[in-house]
């Protein structure tokens, strides 16, 4: 239970510091809202009928907004000088990674729920019959891209052009997650047979597992000085 306690402590710390200002959540939600609106102007009215494209817009809003939150998770530590303190704690690097991941994942999920709600209104999508499969896809997809983002956030934390580097590193690697999530969401929203989602589901699960495994093996090296 030592592990869970340490994990909880770090997550709680991040949660409390965010709760005081609510800055990150607010800006993430505002940004995703803006993305949804801008895409509507970019593509015009024909959108209302093409579920696949709408799924894409939803995920663009999720990912771009999530990225702003991700950039914060380690750079905040670095700016306040608390990164050294965190490394010196008697916790394994994997615990730090997992704690950061869960923290970002939770914040991103909150943002996604709010964004999703706005999305169903703006784009007139019926979602109630599909909530469970949608929830699963969004869970797996979010886990995928937040894991990628957390690792690269740690890598770029000490770099010069931090957020640019994070984006450059992030996008090529998250291509499979984005493709799979968008396609799966599109299939579900169009009301097609759920079996069609399975291959994409497999890709998402494979990606998440491989990525978490690689993070486990290599995170210690990222924190080394």
């Amino acid at each position: 239970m030592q592990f869970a306690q340490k994990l909880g402590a770090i997550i709680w710390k991040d949660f409390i510091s965010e709760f005081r200002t609510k800055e990150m959540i607010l800006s993430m939600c505002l940004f995703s809202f803006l993305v949804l609106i801008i895409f509507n102007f970019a593509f015009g009215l024909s959108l209302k009928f093409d579920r696949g494209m709408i799924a894409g817009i939803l995920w663009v809003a999720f990912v771009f907004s999530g990225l702003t939150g991700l950039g914060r998770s380690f750079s905040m530590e670095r700016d306040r000088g608390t990164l050294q303190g965190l490394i010196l704690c008697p916790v394994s690097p994997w615990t730090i990674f997992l704690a950061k991941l869960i923290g970002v994942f939770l914040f991103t999920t909150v943002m996604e729920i709010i964004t999703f709600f706005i999305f169903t209104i703006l784009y007139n999508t019926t979602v109630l019959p599909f909530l469970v499969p949608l929830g699963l896809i969004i869970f797996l997809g979010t886990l995928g891209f937040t894991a990628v983002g957390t690792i690269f956030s740690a890598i770029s934390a000490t770099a010069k052009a931090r957020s640019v580097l994070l984006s450059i590193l992030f996008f090529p690697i998250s291509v499979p997650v984005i493709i799979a999530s968008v396609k799966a969401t599109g299939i579900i929203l169009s009301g097609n047979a759920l079996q069609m989602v399975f291959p994409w589901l497999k890709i998402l699960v494979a990606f998440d597992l491989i990525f978490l495994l690689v993070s486990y093996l290599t995170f210690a090296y990222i924190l080394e000085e």
Partner: protein
Amino acid sequence: MKRTQTLLIPFQLLTYVLMLLALYTIFIYAPVEKTMGVTQKIFYIHVPAAFLAYLAFFITFMASIFYLYRKDPKWDTVAHCAVETGIIFCTIVLITGPIWAKPIWNVWWTWDPRLTTTLILWFTYVAYLMLRRAVKVNQRANLSAVFGIIGFLNVPITFFSIRLWRTIHPVVITSRGLNMSEPMKLSLITTFIAFCFLFIAMLIGRIRLERSKMHIEELKEIMDGMNFKN
């Protein structure tokens, strides 16, 4: 260093000769393809370059693992140089691909899984070089190695997801099923070997350059040390 240096010149000469031989087989020995015409010959560059681009990144992958395991800077040098050489070949693939596609299918870019994965690969390794520039020197090797590993592992997953997304690559290049005549196969093999030699020559040249840079750093440190004494 001395011994490999004396082997280098004959190796480079051999590369040059093999390239000339390859060009001969492409333009004179191999017949012109019926349906695609003369532009089909671009394929003799495109395929070996693609194989070598992926090989280069595999080398980076292995070198990154060895670096994290052994912490020997030589592996970091190999990883870095392989990325550069790989980007050159990857660029060649991405340029010859569309030039080949345009006269045949009348589109510059097809979102075909192989070519698109190669595009993502290109971005991944450009990102690797950007990473090396942006981070502090003491962490550079570690972070590059981690990214080198992640980047390469991402390739098969990306390929499968894009393939699931769509497919239109010509059948002639499918794994071992080469729908080509004998002289064409021979030309391909010759060109392939010539490019392999070229790849090795370029990689070794780049590594040598990097070693020279490190050598200069060492010499400068010695010089500073001696000046300090005086």
